[in-house]
């Protein structure tokens, strides 16, 4: 393995890859720092750019973008009290309070240091975990894949937002959209309504760009023209205290390490991703703290815990995607389509068949961690200026990026129409409080689910029992049932607690 890494280092450390990672990281920091623009949206908009360059230039660019975007979101959370991405929502609680107390620089440096450590944990897990897991994954057949995808689909419960029922509905819609196109076994056109453009299925980039790019532009348009405040964010902030903050990091090292472990573990589970881990890490940090009463009032631990966790997810989320071909979240789903566009099919054989490229990617992830720290540190004071870009101009440019990103994949005007339609669908979903993530995840997973089930049936001569007779499949299916039961109990408890709180508020 170390020989592979060393060999990969010689391939990766050339000016193109280093430039790609650096530009990706800086672009990610910028995109993440602007409220409304997220790492997900940035990747959706910019991933088509990578389809036409070498995999060890394009994919490292996206990795840098992902890492930069994840940290960049904490900047606006701390400076203006608006998280750049959903993953940074937990950082806002104490980060913004610290800014109000004149400790914005301390919070930002703490977040950066924690991000570095979290990132390192996730990267180590990826480098050592993915090849080891691939040895097990090679034993997987369609039956095991079917069980694993089913397990991942149940995880959608966790990204369903406030309503599980709406999450299930969104997931069902996603499955139906995934079935448009050609049947994977017999090659039969399905649900194409006679349109030849639909025979290849819906273009995932058009779908993601519409759901995240166009939808966000429409949401932002609601507040356009409301005087100067809507034009740009108020950032009359003096960022002081941007020293290394090493003393504070050492003091809270265990909090950061624990949060990094939480992020790594949650990130490696398919379906959960970066939005859950910061809250879990925040909750654990508060519970373990000697001064829990300071949380929410500007506690340093309240900033470092979620930041370490959400950055640890970045690399760890790539494990199920690379090894099983099952994306853990939307960002890894985009990363997966970028890999496929490069002719690299994620799955158990990816590492053995493309060892040089994959170890090159591992080295890029490592380098992106360093790049994040260097560029995050050097450019910290710029972010305040970025937040002053006029919103109408910015979002008009975003629309132009949506158009080039979508069009360039297949040079198809039809894809532009698909992007526009999904922009409207995404807007309606957000207005009706329906989470978009279940729809997109099920869209990606449904294709693998159907193919593995049908191939499994072909292999077992149409016998469904084969799915329960194989040990790995049986274990995963049992885990799936356990997950569903656990989630049902948690949901029931949450509702019960909510009702108790409602009735006590009413009594008062």
């Amino acid at each position, binding site marked *: 393995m170390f020989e592979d890494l060393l060999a990969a280092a010689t391939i990766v450390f050339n000016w193109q890859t280093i430039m790609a990672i650096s530009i990706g990281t800086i672009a990610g920091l910028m995109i993440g720092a602007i409220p409304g623009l997220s790492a997900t949206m940035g990747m959706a908009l910019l991933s088509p750019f990578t389809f036409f360059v070498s995999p060890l230039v394009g994919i490292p660019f996206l990795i840098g973008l992902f890492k930069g975007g994840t940290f960049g979101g904490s900047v606006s959370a701390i400076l203006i009290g608006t998280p750049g991405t959903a993953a940074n929502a937990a950082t806002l609680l104490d980060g913004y309070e610290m800014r109000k107390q004149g400790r914005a620089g301390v919070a930002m440096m703490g977040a950066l240091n924690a991000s570095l450590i979290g990132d390192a944990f996730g990267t180590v897990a990826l480098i050592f975990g993915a090849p080891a897991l691939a040895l097990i994954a090679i034993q997987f057949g369609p039956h095991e894949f079917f069980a694993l995808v089913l397990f991942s689909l149940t995880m959608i419960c966790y990204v369903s937002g406030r309503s599980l029922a709406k999450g299930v509905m969104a997931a069902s819609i996603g499955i139906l959209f995934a079935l448009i196109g050609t049947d994977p076994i017999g090659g039969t056109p399905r649900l194409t309504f006679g349109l030849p453009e639909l025979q290849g299925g819906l273009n995932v980039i058009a779908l993601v760009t519409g759901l995240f790019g166009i939808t966000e532009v429409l949401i932002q348009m609601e507040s356009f023209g409301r005087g100067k405040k809507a034009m740009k964010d108020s950032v009359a902030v003096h960022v002081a205290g941007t020293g290394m903050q090493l003393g504070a990091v050492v003091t809270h090292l265990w909090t950061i390490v624990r949060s990094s472990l939480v992020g790594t573990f949650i990130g490696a589970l398919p379906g959960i991703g970066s939005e859950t881990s910061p809250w879990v890490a925040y909750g654990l940090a508060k519970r373990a703290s000697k001064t829990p009463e300071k949380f929410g009032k500007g506690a340093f631990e309240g900033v470092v815990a979620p930041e370490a966790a959400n950055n640890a997810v970045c690399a760890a989320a790539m494990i199920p995607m690379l090894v099983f071909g099952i994306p853990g979240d939307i960002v890894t789903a985009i990363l997966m389509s970028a890999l496929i566009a490069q002719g690299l099919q994620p799955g158990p054989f990816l590492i053995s068949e493309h060892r040089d490229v994959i170890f090159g990617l591992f080295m890029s992830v490592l380098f992106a961690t360093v790049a994040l720290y260097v560029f995050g540190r050097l450019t910290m004071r710029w972010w305040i200026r970025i937040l002053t870009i*006029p919103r109408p101009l910015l979002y008009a*440019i975003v629309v132009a990026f949506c158009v080039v990103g979508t069009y360039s994949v297949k040079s198809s005007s039809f894809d532009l129409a698909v992007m526009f339609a999904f922009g409207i669908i995404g807007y309606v979903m957000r207005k009706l409080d329906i989470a978009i993530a279940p729809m997109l995840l099920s869209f990606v997973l449904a294709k693998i689910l159907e193919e593995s089930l*049908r191939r499994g049936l072909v292999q077992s001569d149409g016998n469904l029992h084969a799915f329960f007779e194989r040990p790995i499949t049986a274990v995963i299916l049992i885990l799936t049932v356990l997950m569903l039961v656990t989630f049902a109990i948690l949901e029931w408890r949450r509702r019960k607690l909510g009702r108790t709180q409602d009735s006590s508020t009413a009594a008062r």
Partner: protein
Amino acid sequence: MLHQGSGRVLKWILEGALAAIVFATGVLLFLKAPDLVRGWAFTIPGTTDVALEPAFFPRMASLLLAASALLVMATIPLRSDILPAVETSAVAYVRVGTGLGGIMAYLIAVVTLGFVVSTVVFISIASVVGGYRNLLIIVPVAISVAVALRLIFRFGLHVGLPEGLLL
């Protein structure tokens, strides 16, 4: 700002209507799914004849869709939160409608007139309509973005963008 009571009624109506539409779509697709599949393209003995029919998954997904819509309908009273759709003002919807019209016109212009010209015009008009009126910044930025994207795609990535009647 809407009264909480009327907000809740509107929420019931909106969620109910959505669930009803989704339910009807699910049922319709379930019934019509076999017609929307062109049939086996070819049959490989011992392979496709033991796999499920191509219409099986669309039918299952339609059934799941209809069932989830019923679930949404049944759980409406359990959700006490007010929908963002209800909290959004009519003026905001007008802005979004205008924006949608603008984006649609831009997409048509990109294909018919070409990427560069339509992008410059779109960015300029959208910024002004959005409330930012500093043309000394808007126009150079719009031209730079459009030309830079065109050059990057044409010469850097070797991918053509729509040229249309103009450029």
